[in-house]
């Protein structure tokens, strides 16, 4: 049952992607993809997230629509946080999608 559900979700997603691609619509809005802008390894600007799951000096985990984004580093801190976007400062070592 679960497998069927999963395959149906995947099918839906691929269909959605195809439609978005063919109509050349903005992917971040329709697919709910993260927009991550990195400035060197000192600053990261993130959009299109749903919430913050974990926040520590070494790891910030963000929940997106499709997946999670893990930012790893040292002395990480949130410069500002709103519903739309956020800015992370610190020594960023790794950006990982999970």
């Amino acid at each position, binding site marked *: 049952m679960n497998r069927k559900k999963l395959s149906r979700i995947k099918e839906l997603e691929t269909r959605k992607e195809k439609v978005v691609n063919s109509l050349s619509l903005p992917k971040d809005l329709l697919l709910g993809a993260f927009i991550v802008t990195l400035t060197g390894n000192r600053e990261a600007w993130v959009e299109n997230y749903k*919430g*913050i*799951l*974990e*926040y*520590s*000096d070494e790891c910030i985990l963000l929940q997106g629509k499709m997946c999670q984004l893990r930012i790893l580093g040292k002395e990480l*801190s*949130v*410069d*500002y*946080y*709103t*519903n739309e976007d956020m800015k992370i400062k610190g020594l960023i070592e790794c950006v990982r999608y999970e």
Partner: protein
Amino acid sequence: MIRFYHYLRGYLKIKIWGFSPERFINLCGNQDILLWDIENHEDYFIMFISIAGFKKLKTITKKTGTRVVILKKYGLPFFYPKIRKRCVFAIGLFGCLLLLQMMSHYIWIISFSGNQIITDEQLLMYLKEKQIYCGVNKKKIQVEQLERDFRHDFNKITWISAKIEGTKLFIQLKENDYLKREEKEQVDTGMDLQATRDGTIISMITRSGVPMVRAMDEIKSGDILISGAVPVYEEDMTVKNYIFCKADADIYLKCRYLYAGKIHEMYQYKVYTGREKKVPFLKTREREIKLSLREPSFIHSDCLMHQNKIELIKDFYLPLSYGNYQYKEYVLMEKKYTKEQVEKLCYKKLEDISETLQEKGVQILEKNVKIKKESANYLWTAEFLVIEKTGKLIRTQTEAPNTDQQ
């Protein structure tokens, strides 16, 4: 700019701790509450939040089970009630600002630069006649008109620039060393060159006029050296008429300068006791207020005045000065000059004299000094043999022959 906006609206530094601070941040985001400078301190979070955002936190804290404490308040909304309590201070501050604003409409300092012949006092007097003085409204000063007036009324001024900087009227000028107009006026009547000292003429070169003397002649003070009346002769060698001109010549005269003076053998000198007193003062344009009840009770004292004009920002002067009088007590002691000291003093005086002579363009050939003691005084005489340029312009004495009778 954002910080200024935050300051205007007011913001708080808060500390949160409890079950799920991350959820607290998420809910704040969902409710459009801006959080900034979020710091993680393991057990608790410190962040900044606006006042409007803080008012919405009650439901969020209940939901997330977190606790919030205000650490510090920033911004104008928190400053305003404090000011309200100090009403008089606020009025004073406002009054002060108003006064400053009003003061900035007036001129509080007038300065000149570039004037050597015309003194500051003369210029100030002239400005006063034109209704421009310290304390006059800036609007009343028409800089261009003022410059024109200066150029018209002072022949010596060749260039002038006046400008207002803050509360300061700054006038720069350049002067001409000699007056062309006056000379022109006098040329019509003819000018003679007259000797100013007794002596022997070493050399002379005449450019205009008729020479009345020759080189190596002995002349006396008041003699006419060059005549400004050039005769026009008839055929029978009688003077028909005179053409008047300004006599011009380089005449070098060998002459003697004599100087004499006396120095008293006793002299007084100051010995400072080390006792000092400072009396602060405040000064407006006309009044001076000493901020001390007692004047120093020194018999003899030197007084040094330190005065500073109050300048709020660059070139924004106020009509107020402050400073202090520094009184230094001294005792007068008497001492006798030794012969060596007297000689030194005399030579110093001679050096000063020869310096002033050389500044005038006088060439010194010889100098003799004699020092003689007479009772309690030392008498000194100095004789300088010099070569100097002579000749003073005077109105010519020669009159044109009466042509009516002929």
